[in-house]
């Protein structure tokens, strides 16, 4: 078991990667065997993430050096700096890892039935596993260049999956836009990495954080990185691609692209807090993030309210709820260099933002799956053409209600708990932020009331009288995310104390991240 824990950082990335390459081969023999392989690989990855998480909460940061005599030897003899590829997993990384692994497993199970009638399933599952690899790699990597590499893996697989149903013109267009946006974002990250390497001869994040001088070039690199990851996170005014890409993406893939978006948000936090940390002009960057968050909340929700395409409406809510996450963490970032404010409300704001990240991954993932379930059975995403589906799709309706009430912040669901933390902390910085956040929450409820009224209630429509509930594997996929939402709703203090506070503390504690690699150097 000890060996499993020690090697788990690389196994968590290697297992889905190996399964991705095996999938086309196994597909030649049997589709059923391929499905078993995909689910087994993702389930084992989830198991490893949980095992590693448990150990990190007990013993602290894990580092894993590839190619070294021992994985924990980060700096070779006769060297002063790390030169090998290092994975560094702290409480923040594993928090993001838990989220990605769970959403990807649920998405894959959901996809089993949903893409059964599609062609090219060997490629679909290969890309699905690569998307998982990209997310987990971004979350666990300890150096800038590999952050770029995993971002590329995530982007290419995400774009191909978004465009998977090539018979739909909007799917191809959505995939193309995601590819262009991702390529531009990745180039900005590569350019920033080049700036760091030219200045410091370093690629490792911990070593760079220790050497950071915050020169003019570093400021340019910071601009490139913040903008690139803000765009990939769907923050306003760089959110345009989100509804175009999410709407036509196949079932099961939408939540995974969403967790990929959250992995990019994780990278934004990692850059600001860990790479720059105390060297940063925290108030300036913090307020840039806060303004982006407030704009995202408001523009996202008002645009969502206006939509009549159920998945496009939910895609706009991705932007809107992302705003809460940016607001929470932005408040913490704005007071990073003020120890008193950080202790009194900054840490709580970051924790609220992070709690909303994982809550939202589950209930938004669930909502995207219910939206796709409607499309799967009705053949349309147009709310104007729907009605009375609560009669035919009872379980989907219940899952939708759980997700809708949670995202709207209705007590006692988990969305309320995380929003409450953000409201209370943001109020200390500026009460207007809390007022805007509360108004957005009310409009969110109005928006999902519209979906519930249009799609699920009303008289039974004659054209849908034969519509049946979705297949079992789709229900299981939704059930996993609904179960996680209910668990987080009933035990918010347990979740916050176990995984959220350690993640927030890891984000704030730049020295611990540096010391795990650099030791006493």
């Amino acid at each position, binding site marked *: 078991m000890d060996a499993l824990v020690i090697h788990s950082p690389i196994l968590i990335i290697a297992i889905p990667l190996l399964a991705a390459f095996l999938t086309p081969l196994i597909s030649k023999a049997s589709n059923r065997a391929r499905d078993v392989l995909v689910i087994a690989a993702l389930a084992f990855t989830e198991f490893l993430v949980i095992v590693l998480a448990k150990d990190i909460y007990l013993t602290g940061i894990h580092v894993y050096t590839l190619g070294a005599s021992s994985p924990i030897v980060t700096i070779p003899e006769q060297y002063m700096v790390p030169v090998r590829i290092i994975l560094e997993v702290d409480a923040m990384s594993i928090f993001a890892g838990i989220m990605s692994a769970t959403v990807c497993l649920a998405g894959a199970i959901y996809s089993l039935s949903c893409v059964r009638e599609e062609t090219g399933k060997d490629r679909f599952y290969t890309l699905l596993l690569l998307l998982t690899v990209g997310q987990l790699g971004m979350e666990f990597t300890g150096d800038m260049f590999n952050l770029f590499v995993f971002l590329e893996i995530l982007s290419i697989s995400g774009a191909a999956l978004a465009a998977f149903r090539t018979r739909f013109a909007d799917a191809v267009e959505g995939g*193309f*836009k995601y590819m*262009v946006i991702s390529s*531009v974002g990745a180039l900005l990250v590569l350019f920033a990495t080049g700036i760091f390497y030219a200045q410091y001869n370093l690629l490792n994040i911990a070593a760079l954080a220790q050497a950071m001088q915050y020169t*003019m070039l570093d*400021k*340019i690199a910071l*601009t*490139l990185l*913040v*903008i690139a990851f*803000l*765009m990939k996170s769907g923050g306003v*005014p*760089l959110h*345009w*691609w989100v*509804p*175009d890409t999410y709407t036509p993406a196949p079932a099961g893939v939408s939540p995974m692209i969403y967790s990929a978006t959250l992995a990019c948000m994780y990278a934004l936090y990692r850059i600001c807090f860990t790479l720059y940390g105390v060297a940063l*002009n925290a108030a*300036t*960057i913090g307020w*840039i993030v806060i303004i982006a968050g407030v704009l995202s909340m408001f523009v996202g929700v*008002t*645009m969502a*309210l*206006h939509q*009549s395409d159920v998945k496009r409406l939910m895609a706009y809510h991705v932007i809107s709820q992302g705003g809460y996450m940016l607001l929470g963490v932005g408040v913490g970032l704005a007071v990073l260099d003020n120890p008193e*404010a950080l*202790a*009194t*409300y900054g840490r*709580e704001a970051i924790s609220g933002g992070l709690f909303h990240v994982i809550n939202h991954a589950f209930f938004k993932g669930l909502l995207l799956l219910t939206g796709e379930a409607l499309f799967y059975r009705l053949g349309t995403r147009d*709310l*104007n053409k*729907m*009605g009375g589906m609560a009669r035919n799709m009872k379980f989907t309706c219940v899952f939708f209600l759980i997700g809708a009430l949670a995202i709207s912040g209705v*007590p*006692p*669901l988990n969305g309320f*708990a995380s929003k*409450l*933390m953000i409201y*209370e*902390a943001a*109020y*200390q910085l500026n009460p207007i932020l809390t007022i805007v956040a509360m108004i957005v929450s009310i409009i969110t409820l*109005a928006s999902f009331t*519209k979906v519930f*009224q*249009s799609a699920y209630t*009303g*008289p*039974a*429509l*004659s054209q849908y009288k034969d519509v049946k509930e979705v297949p079992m594997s789709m229900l299981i996929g939704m059930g996993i995310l609904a179960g996680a939402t209910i668990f987080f709703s*009933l035990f*918010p*203090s347990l979740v*916050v104390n176990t995984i959220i506070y350690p993640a927030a503390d890891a984000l704030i504690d730049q020295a611990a991240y540096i010391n795990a690699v650099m030791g006493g150097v």
Partner: protein
Amino acid sequence: MATSVPTLDYWAPLVCLIAFVILIAVTYLFRSRGRKQYKKGTAQTEIFLSGEEPPDTEERHIRAYNIYWGFFQGLKRYYDPTIKAHSGIINDYIIWLIALMSITAVILTIVSLT
């Protein structure tokens, strides 16, 4: 002077859940005391609309485009430019990216000089 914000320790969702279950039980109790001797398939179970003939099933359902119509009309001056900005053209997306990147770089430079 900032005051320390409370943690989630005081928030007890289980109490909410218990209250919800009690509410459901009371609702069910009221419902179970309703009259059971009505006759199905007669005028007793049909829609009563002040003596008027109720519209067909398709027409009775309020469609999504009817919902919040007044809200959108009231905020027309906000919605018109916002929807127009969502052009769907990838070139526009990149222009926004370049503009925001420039503004951020300028802000960071000015702040570091002051």
